[in-house]
């Protein structure tokens, strides 16, 4: 039987188990995800300080409440309580003074960790963060762009953030950093990560329809792995030894990423015509015109595929205007040529 209430009970039990993970460093604690930055322990310290004081006072208040509700309850026939003073200066000073002193420490340690998190150290590695509805883009100093955030471990990294449209906010719970991204200005934050692993970056300022899907994966890696990744990201056409790809290899790689679903290289028609043996041949279009498959035809087909639709095929291809650099288009041409005519 699968009653909702049963699965809810099972979930409650599970929630209690999740709440107490076996290894707090790997999975976080009852209250927090792992501490993966130098800020995290500072921020959590204040949290736990306030937490234990709160727990103490809550227990005190509840205990006093229950005790008095029972001890001084109305007893049948005895309407009046006992005589007691209506106020007490000493008592009131005590219970104002003690919370006052305790809050000073909350205020001060909170301020300290805030200033630590709000003051990017000089010479940090700088990553540009571009937020827009509803995705993230990260731009690295060497020009690399990506939708994933990669960071070298044990390095100061500064984020310079801007928004293309509305408010967003940059939050990585494992680092305890958060900063709003405001259209029309740059905001900054920074992090010194301490633990390799994979984390999640959330947008946490409401930004419209897909706000809840505006997340990015965060990878904290050792310096060598990070260096390799960021170099490859800046120029994806390098082989294992750092040697540049040939144009044909560039074209092959792009084909594998963007075109293979619709164009075959074995002569069979998929969604669009096959590329095998097409170079230099005469193409016939839906309106009866013909044209030679050359460099200019290729480029027009790529940028404006609807202008001349090959006979027998649907106008299913979307424009790739602005997607490829010239060197990449050259690579595609070299690759198609290499498939023979």
């Amino acid at each position, binding site marked *: 039987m699968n009653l909702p209430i049963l699965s809810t009970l099972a979930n409650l039990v599970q929630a209690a188990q999740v709440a107490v993970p076996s290894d707090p460093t790997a999975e976080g604690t009852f209250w927090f995800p792992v501490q993966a930055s130098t800020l995290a322990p500072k921020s959590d310290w204040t949290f736990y300080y306030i937490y234990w004081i709160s727990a103490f006072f809550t227990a005190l208040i509840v205990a006093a409440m229950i005790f008095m509700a029972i001890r001084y309850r109305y007893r049948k026939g005895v*309407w009046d309580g006992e005589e007691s003073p209506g106020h007490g200066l000493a008592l009131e000073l005590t219970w104002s003074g003690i919370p006052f002193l305790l809050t000073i420490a909350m205020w001060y340690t909170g301020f300290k960790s805030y200033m630590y998190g709000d003051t990017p150290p000089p010479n940090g590695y700088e990553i540009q963060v571009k937020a827009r509805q509803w995705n993230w883009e990260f731009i690295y100093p060497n020009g690399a762009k990506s939708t994933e955030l990669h960071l070298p471990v044990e390095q100061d990294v500064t984020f310079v953030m801007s928004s293309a449209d509305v408010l967003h906010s940059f939050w990585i719970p494992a680092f305890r950093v958060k900063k709003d991204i405001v259209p029309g200005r740059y905001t900054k934050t920074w992090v010194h990560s301490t633990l390799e692993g994979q984390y999640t970056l959330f947008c946490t*300022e409401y930004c419209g329809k897909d706000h809840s899907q505006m997340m990015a994966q965060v990878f904290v890696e050792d310096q060598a792995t990070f260096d390799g990744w960021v170099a490859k990201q800046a120029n994806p056409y390098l082989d294992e030894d750092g040697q540049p790809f040939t144009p044909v290899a560039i074209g092959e790689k792009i084909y594998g990423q963007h075109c293979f679903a619709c164009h075959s290289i074995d002569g069979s028609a998929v969604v669009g015509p096959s590329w095998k043996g097409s170079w230099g041949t005469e193409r016939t279009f839906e309106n009866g015109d013909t044209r030679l498959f050359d460099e200019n035809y290729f480029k027009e087909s790529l940028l404006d595929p609807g202008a001349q639709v090959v006979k027998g095929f649907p106008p299913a291809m979307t424009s790739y205007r602005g997607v490829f650099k010239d060197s990449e288009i050259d690579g595609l041409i070299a690759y198609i040529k290499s498939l023979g005519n």
Partner: protein
Amino acid sequence: METKVTHDKNDSIYGGAEPNYLNASKGILSWMFTIDHKRIGVMYTFGTIGALMLGGVFALLVRLHLWVPEGLLVDNQTYNQFFTLHGAVMVFLFVIPGIPGALGNFALPLMLGAKDVAFPRVNLMSFWLWAIGAVFFVTVLVTGGLDTGWTFYTPYSVKTDTSVIWAVSGAFFLGFSSIFTGLNFIVTVHRMRPKNMGWFNMPLFIWGIYSTAVIQVLATPVLGITLLLLAVERSAGLGIFNSEFGGDPVLFQHFFWFYSHPAVYIMILPAMAIISELMATFSRKKVFGYTLVAYSSVAIAIFGFLVWGHHMFTSGQSAWASLVFSTLTFSISIPSAIKVFNWLSTMYKGSVRLDTPMWYALAFLWMFTVGGLTGMFLGSMGTDVHLHDTYFIVSHFHYVMVGSIMFAYFGGLHYWWPKMFGKMYNEVMGKLGAALMFIGFNVTFFPQFIMGSRGMPRRYATYLPEFQNLHQVSTVGAFILGTGVAVGIWTLFSSIVNGKKAPQNPWGAASMEWETATPPIEHNFHEIPTVKPVYDFSTLKFNEETGNWDRIADTSEDNN
């Protein structure tokens, strides 16, 4: 000295044959154009309960949708509308106007021994402005909805194509309604106190409503103008808050919170005011440290204006501004904490009776303790950075706005209901409602603290699977809470039909509204009762036969 029963000329403690304010005149027009503060209070009661139910439906839709990580019911866009309408209806139509409009209007003039508020027609106007605001909000529902969140943050609120203009116009009317109510109470308290009732001889309910009124009058205009500017920016492209036209989005946040932080005290001070009455009456003791509690209401009202920046620690405002706001936030937490200790101490050596209103009062103490203490985590700049805009915030403000304020509202309703309608409700059902609400509320919101600090952002239509367990617990709680609210409302309303007749003073309360007939006559009092020392319960004796607390002559003069 002879023993004299001082209730009204009506010979019976059950109201007698004389017409009361409910049946003195008949017909829908006699209600629509009434200038009787009691009838206006009743209309506000019905209206705000209606708003609570409308907002509650959206709340349940939100919780149901979050049953599964990818969302159970609707697409993201529609979910965003659900949480926006839930928040806007609850805040602007229920929590802000609720206690002052319904219970303040009904009880405050009676407590002062006055015949009405200072400006009865303005009072009627206030109610109708509330109703117009409500109509605007309902219009929003059918003209494209609203998906900005109740905070209307720019520039999204300038760009979205939902009905922002309708919504801000509605809020604008509601603002005027709130200002008129506040204005009326300020003047009423200053001008219409009986000659021999000094400031420190007023029940604390009046102190609380008075402090609230000051904030309503001073802060609400700022919201009005801000929303007007937003509407102009949206329709005319004026550059105020939108950076594309040279405006500044953060400026909107400053304006918004300059009103909306004081607004949280517009909400909580009346709730605290009710709790003071309940703790005193049901402990049969004067509120411990009365003077300090009275002053702390005013202190909270004043300091409340100076802390708005604590909503903006991550907004990009300067760190030094944040430091000042954090400092002031902690300062204001002290008077709030003091009140909790004072309420607790009121029970000390009292004679504590656990009738339904007292259940709500004790529940309030737990809720406000949790809600207030979690405010500390947010007032501290460092911890707020992590917790801001997560479910931790959602839970914090629900502990204060629902756990504390809605519970106080229900406590107050159960307390004054017999006076309002002349009927006693079923105690067992009343307590059942309170218990279900208490359990349901905590099951709903406590898990949200944990979710929030573990990494669950707020206003998410979909979420990561790791949060599913906690979300499901929360949803189950919400349905228990909804059941509790329904039971509470049902218990009250059904008593109008089948409740026992209420005596003049069923709780042994010492303030003046209990010295007139139940329900009160149209002009409240035939003659103004003599002012007695505030919270002096010693001359009230329970009459086992009638179930009423009779006033007996004060013999203390003979003694001293």
